[in-house]
């Protein structure tokens, strides 16, 4: 079937620099002594820790489980002992530490019992539910939990399943070598995804600068019973962005306020498909990934790296950094970010590490004024007007920026790349976005506070009225009693007093805490934990 490809609006052609790292096959990395596993390796909720320091764990064992619908589990990349659970530097543009599990390898690298799933005979929903324990996230770098995207969409369903092997960003070659060397595993993963989603069509999209990968994938696809088309797309950054690739391959533009699945599309990275295969057919959870190490290193290449491996170990495997290396970049040169240290660990989103040097990435010349030349608008793959967004972000006119669709910006960097005035445009958009998000959050918190304050005021008012009513009732009751038989009244009074004492005693024992109704589960849990702590303390005091 010959399908016409849609031409992407905008885009740029930065120098590719891919050959440096594709000459060698996927190599192994020596196991590091200590592995650091941040809990935040994916988009969504922080997973809940299941282990304690001192505990011995096996390779592939779940260390933290997914919480809520959008979350992913974290597993032990090797066998060893949990050393600590504390804040450590993680690969994040903020350069801030975050809660991580530190694992000391015992050197045996012993797997837990691997339980392959007989997926062909498992109900689809059940299969997807089980994926919560797989730890699989989008391996292209977005790190969105995969089980969400695999939920069979009922009647509406997925019409086209797109496998993303475009890998459009310069320097990065991890998907390229993966397709060259492990096309069969990828295809097996696609077959599973096909079973779960039952799409009408499967397309594998690969950019035309990877002929070996195209060849390997075509051969592997041909061997499969499930029909899948490998389509070669012209090399153009950022064709590999999920929505852009979907549009190029199918002509369907996913509406900006909807998800791909709403438009009958689903896009997965090739490495994600391999992880799916390994989990279901081999019973292996996500414990490693392929990382490209390139730039200013002695032997650039691709490595299969256990998660949590320090970047330093990885760089050594690539022959070490060359002189003049002044920074480490995670991701590609267009969308990556500088790492705060050589010690931060490899995480699920680490697709590439580039050792930067002044010669490779010269410092940008000072920014000049915007001359409104609109080259950025020509380069924008989303058809935004970056020059307008820049004005709004610069003047902190955030509402206007939002109105001009700031949140459709994918931060691909094409605008900055072409800007004749060297303006760091993407930085302005990131600033404006996070500022707007923070303001929205503050607004939400303020609304909650207002609600709670109003509720409190009305409660106080209600209690006051209730007290007044009780007073009035009691006054009326006393009058009636005085009118009746005294002995009977005395008897009744005695009973009433006894009952009241009983009540007070019971109350004292139970002492129901105030205003604990209507609070969230987490708060309930917090209270329970505090109570437990208190009881413990009391016991300790008594023992003393």
């Amino acid at each position, binding site marked *: 079937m010959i399908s016409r490809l849609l031409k992407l609006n905008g885009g740029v052609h930065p120098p590719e620099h891919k050959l440096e790292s594709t000459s060698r096959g996927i190599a192994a990395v020596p196991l590091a002594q200590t592995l650091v596993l941040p809990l935040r390796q994916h988009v969504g909720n922080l997973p809940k820790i299941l282990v304690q320091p001192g505990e011995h764990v096996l390779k592939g064992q779940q260390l933290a489980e997914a919480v809520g619908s959008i979350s992913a589990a974290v597993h032990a990349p090797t066998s060893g002992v949990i050393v600590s659970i504390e804040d450590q530097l993680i690969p*994040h543009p*903020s350069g801030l530490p975050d809660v991580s599990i530190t694992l000391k390898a015992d050197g045996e690298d012993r797997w837990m019992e691997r339980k392959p799933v007989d997926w062909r005979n498992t109900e689809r929903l059940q299969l997807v539910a089980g994926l919560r324990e797989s730890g699989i996230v989008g391996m292209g770098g977005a790190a969105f939990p995969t089980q969400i995207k695999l939920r069979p969409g009922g009647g509406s369903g997925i019409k086209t399943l797109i496998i993303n092997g475009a890998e459009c960003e310069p320097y990065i070659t991890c998907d390229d070598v993966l397709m060259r060397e492990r096309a069969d595993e990828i295809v097996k993963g696609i077959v599973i995804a096909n079973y779960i989603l039952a799409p009408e069509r499967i397309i594998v999209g690969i950019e035309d600068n990877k002929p070996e990968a195209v060849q390997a994938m075509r051969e592997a696809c041909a061997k499969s019973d499930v029909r899948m088309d490998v389509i070669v797309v012209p090399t153009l950054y950022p064709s590999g962005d999920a929505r852009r690739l979907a549009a190029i391959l199918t002509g369907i533009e996913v509406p900006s306020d909807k998800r791909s699945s709403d438009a009958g599309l689903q896009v997965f990275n090739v490495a994600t498909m391999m992880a799916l295969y390994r989990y279901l057919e081999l019973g292996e959870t996500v414990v490693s990934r392929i990382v490209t190490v390139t730039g200013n290193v002695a032997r650039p290449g691709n490595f299969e790296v256990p998660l949590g491996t320090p970047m330093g170990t990885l760089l050594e495997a690539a022959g070490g950094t060359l002189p003049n290396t002044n920074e480490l970049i995670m991701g590609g040169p267009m969308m990556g970010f500088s790492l705060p240290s050589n010690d931060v660990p490899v995480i699920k989103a680490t697709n590439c590490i580039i050792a930067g040097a002044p010669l490779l990435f010269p410092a940008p010349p000072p920014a000049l004024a915007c001359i409104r030349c609109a080259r950025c608008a020509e380069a924008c793959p989303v058809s935004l007007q970056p020059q307008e967004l820049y004005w709004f972000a610069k003047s902190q006119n955030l509402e206007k920026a939002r109105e001009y669709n700031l949140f459709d910006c994918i931060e691909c960097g094409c605008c900055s790349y072409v800007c004749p005035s060297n303006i760091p445009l993407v930085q302005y958009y990131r*600033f404006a*976005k996070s500022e707007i998000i923070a303001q929205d959050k503050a607004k939400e918190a303020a609304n909650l506070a*207002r609600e709670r304050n109003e509720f409190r005021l009305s409660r106080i008012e209600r209690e006051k009225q209730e007290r007044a009513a009780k007073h009035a009732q009691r006054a009326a009751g006393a009058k009636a009693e005085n009118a009746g038989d005294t002995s009977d009244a005395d008897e009744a009074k005695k009973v009433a007093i006894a009952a009241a004492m009983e009540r007070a005693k019971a109350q004292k024992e139970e002492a129901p805490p*105030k205003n604990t109704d209507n609070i969230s589960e987490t708060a309930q849990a*917090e209270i329970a934990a505090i109570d437990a702590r208190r009881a413990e303390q009391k016991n300790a005091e008594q023992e003393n």
Partner: protein
Amino acid sequence: MLAAVLVMLVLALMLGLVLGYSAIRFKVEGDPLVGKIDAILPQTQCGQCGYPGCKPYATAIANGEADINQCPPGGEAGMRALADLLGVEPRPMNEEHGVSKPKSVAVIDENVCIGCTLCIQACPVDAILGAAKHMHTVIASECTGCELCVAPCPVDCIVMVPLQESVANWKWRYPVHTIKQVA
């Protein structure tokens, strides 16, 4: 002469009718001003402005009884937003009402708390849990940082802890072009 006067009169009459009609036709319902002001205020309910809460302060501003620069938690930005809404000149913050501080949350030292419930009664948003003679605790996510619970505590076991920047609440900075050091 007479014609000119008549023309002017008819014109005045017609314009008057148009104005009168539009005043009825495009009437703005209710008095949303208090609500609009209240929406800008941070809802800390701290009372630093001299009013018992954000809503009373908003009402006072709407009635012209209070100035717009009396809300330290809202800070300069809040004052500017109010000035923008009300069409008045921004003015410096009135420091009599306190100075703007980074957002904090109250934390109760569990070992010192005697369970007197005074802080519970002081909290304007019911963010403190506990019962008489039982240790109290603060729901961090619902604490507005108003500090109203600090003073009533007889054993001084409540401290205000500024919120730390973390990966979860971290924000991208306003771009400044740093000149890369040439090694």
